[in-house]
């Protein structure tokens, strides 16, 4: 069968779902949805439909992005736009069946927006809501809208048509198109993809060529790649097959975290379906091009996100980065053969560039950072979730428009991008455009897409310590600056957070940071100090408060805080007393309670438990407490 025939059939099947007169219920069952209980919601719908004899079709889809609204359900009634309902638990699912599906009464208070050409009643189009208005869905264009286990859905939505077009082009022309598009590596480094593909195409190494996809998404607080793998796995396969054709490879590897079992399952299904359609295996799309893709599950080492460590890991070795100077991976990569290694989102971006052209791709974004940026927006922000925005949009727009602002009206303090290799930026830099170069200049990095928003209750020294703790543990131990440097930095940061900081610590941290940056072998070490350097640069006063004032302004660092009961406010209700896990609180009923500070473990349960009408338990600084007791 030719590709045109395959595509025609797929479109017929896709249209049939919509035109069948059935109500279609799409439930987001990616990992984030499942965590929020989406599988139970699927069961509830199925049970309701069976019991009430309703003719409806349930489809499990990937993640549409707004994790804060999970489980997310999109109900498409015949001849109406779909309606996205938020936070649908089992009870809400039953209500939706009775109200919207059976009686056509739309409970608009549950609706997030509509998907289609118009709103319904007072429910606006999702695209017109503040959270989605600034977004441009390209990498995520299918996520949450198609069944990721059905290849026909992907094909019916332009899937594999980029490959079909590419396979009739000359590899050099594909490379030229990529170069023209300005696509840069989406793993964080931002190396021009076209140049990398060109280097692999014209490598001087005559060996067998490999294509490797880095899906070892290890940054804490980042899950963009997982969402693509779970919600639209064929987009990655198509990109990799296209890459294989371009650089003349027969074999591709997907290096995916073993902690992503659902993503692995979805990829396995997708690979076997691609085989059935003749997009993998021998004689792909009727040509003599042959290609196979194998899944390799990473075993939990952050450093394997580094390209040379990753390839060593596939070879069955310890994932320790190779020292520079060394040949580029496109010369000597996996098994010392020429290897093209890109991130999930980079590969997934390429089919549409070939299909729609470089100009289309570069029509959004900035001159040097074209296309869209994908972020996992989390922390103290209202709309937590995955977002896709044009490159160059300001941090402020992301946090306040797309993200809906700070949770509970709290005060913005910092935004962290780039994970353990990135930095924390303050309010004064909120108008920084999010592109590779601007973020670099500001002292952070684009990274693979983690973006964590922090409020006034976040201690920046503690955040720096947190990241150093991570890199220190994940350091492969091969080179001294990283192995010992991160350890020493961590020790200093720990002592500062424990109130044992010494004058001169800040300068010492800066000096160490510089040394680690200059002396480490790989990117992990070279960037390890970034969270510390950026927090010193923008939040030096907090370091000084810890060191000189023995005070944690955010009241996070345990050694510097205490819990106390206000004599004016305490009514002696006894709730805190009963909930204290270490019996540190004493006091008779209806009389003032007090905390024995020698017993208190500062778990904060008393503060949490103290009734809102009293708010008698307070978190104070140690210093304040000492002054009071004196």
């Amino acid at each position: 069968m030719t590709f045109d025939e395959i595509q025609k059939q797929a479109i017929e099947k896709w249209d049939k779902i919509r035109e069948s007169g059935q109500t279609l219920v799409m439930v987001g069952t990616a990992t984030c949805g499942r965590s929020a209980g989406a599988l139970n919601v699927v069961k509830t719908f199925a049970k309701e439909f069976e019991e009430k004899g309703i003719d409806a079709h349930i489809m499990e889809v990937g993640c549409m992005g707004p994790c804060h609204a999970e489980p997310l359900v999109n109900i498409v009634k015949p001849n109406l736009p779909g309606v996205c309902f938020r936070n649908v638990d089992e009870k809400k699912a039953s209500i939706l069946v009775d109200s919207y599906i059976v009686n056509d009464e739309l409970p608009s208070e549950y609706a997030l927006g509509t998907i289609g050409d118009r709103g319904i009643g007072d429910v606006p189009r999702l695209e017109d809501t503040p959270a989605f208005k600034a977004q441009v869905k390209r990498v995520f264009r299918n996520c949450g809208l198609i069944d990721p286990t059905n290849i026909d859905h992907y094909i019916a939505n332009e899937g594999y048509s980029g490959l079909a077009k590419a396979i009739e082009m000359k590899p050099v022309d594909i490379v030229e198109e990529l170069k023209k598009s300005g696509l840069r590596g989406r793993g964080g480094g931002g190396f021009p993809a076209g140049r990398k593909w060109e280097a692999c195409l014209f490598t001087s190494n005559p060996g067998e060529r490999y294509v490797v996809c880095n899906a070892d998404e290890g940054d804490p607080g980042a899950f963009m790649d997982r969402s693509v793998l779970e919600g639209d796995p064929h987009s990655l396969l198509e990109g990799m097959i296209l890459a294989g054709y371009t650089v003349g490879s027969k074999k591709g590897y997907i290096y995916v975290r073993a902690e992503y079992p659902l993503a692995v399952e979805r990829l396995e299904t997708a690979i076997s379906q691609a085989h059935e359609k003749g997009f993998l295996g021998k004689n792909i799309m009727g040509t003599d091009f042959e290609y196979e893709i194998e899944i390799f599950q990473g075993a939990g080492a952050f450093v394997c996100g580094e390209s040379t460590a990753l390839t060593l890991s596939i070879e069955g070795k310890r994932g320790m980065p190779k020292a520079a100077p060394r040949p580029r991976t496109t010369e000597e990569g996996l098994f010392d053969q020429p290897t093209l290694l890109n991130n999930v989102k980079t590969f997934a971006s390429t089919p549409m560039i070939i299909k729609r052209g470089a100009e289309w791709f570069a029509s959004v974004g900035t001159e040097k950072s074209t296309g869209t940026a994908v972020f996992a927006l989390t922390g103290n922000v209202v709309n937590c979730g995955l977002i896709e925005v044009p490159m160059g949009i300001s941090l402020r727009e992301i946090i306040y428009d797309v993200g809906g602002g700070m949770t509970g009206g709290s005060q913005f303090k910092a935004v962290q991008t780039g994970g353990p290799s990135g930095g924390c930026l303050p309010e004064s830099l909120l108008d920084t455009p999010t592109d590779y170069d601007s973020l670099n200049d500001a002292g952070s990095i684009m990274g693979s897409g983690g973006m964590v928003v922090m409020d006034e209750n976040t201690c920046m020294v503690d955040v720096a310590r947190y990241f150093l703790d991570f890199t220190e543990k994940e350091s492969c131990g091969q080179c001294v600056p990283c192995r010992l440097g991160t350890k020493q930095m961590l020790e200093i940061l720990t002592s500062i957070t424990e109130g044992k900081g010494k004058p001169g610590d800040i300068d010492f941290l800066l000096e160490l940071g510089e040394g680690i940056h200059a002396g480490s072998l790989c990117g992990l070490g070279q960037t390890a100090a970034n969270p510390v350097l950026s927090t010193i640069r923008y939040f030096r006063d907090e370091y000084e408060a810890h060191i000189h004032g023995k005070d944690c302004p955010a009241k996070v660092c345990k050694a510097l805080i205490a819990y106390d009961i206000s004599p004016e406010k305490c009514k002696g209700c006894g709730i805190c007393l009963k909930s204290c896990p270490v019996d540190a609180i004493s006091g008779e009923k209806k009389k003032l309670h007090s905390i024995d500070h020698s017993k208190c473990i500062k778990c904060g349960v008393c503060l949490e438990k103290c009734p809102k009408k009293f708010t008698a338990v307070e978190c104070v600084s140690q210093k304040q407490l000492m002054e009071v007791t004196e």
Partner: protein
Amino acid sequence: MKERLSTILEPYKGRGDRLVPILQMVQEELGYLPDEAMIEIADKTGLPESRIYAVASFYGQFRFTPSGKHKVMVCRGTACHVKGAKRILEETERHLGIKEDETTEDMEYTLETVACIGCCALAPCVMIDDDVEANLTPRKVTEIFEERK
């Protein structure tokens, strides 16, 4: 154990390049990597035992002691951290009476931390076996473990 292992290892004779997936399969089967298994893997792949151990000890996924019936994973992702994951870990440690990476004496629970579960909108969270406990507070941790008693 030898029999169970040989079924797994048979197709990988001399395939040292498949070491990581081999270790994953063995751990999947046995729950951890006992010494006997390591020796067996060395035998079959033809790699020295030191190399098997070097690779296994490098990756966080592999464990050398048996784990408890239930796995408690406290997420230490950035989003969880800024929302108080440290206290959640401390409370969990206190309730189970063990530290990170330890197993309770009755072999009921193994406590681990994970760099990120990836459901940051539910932060801070803990995964107990396959269930995610979301938006935790120290008090909720108490409730969870009291309910499970």
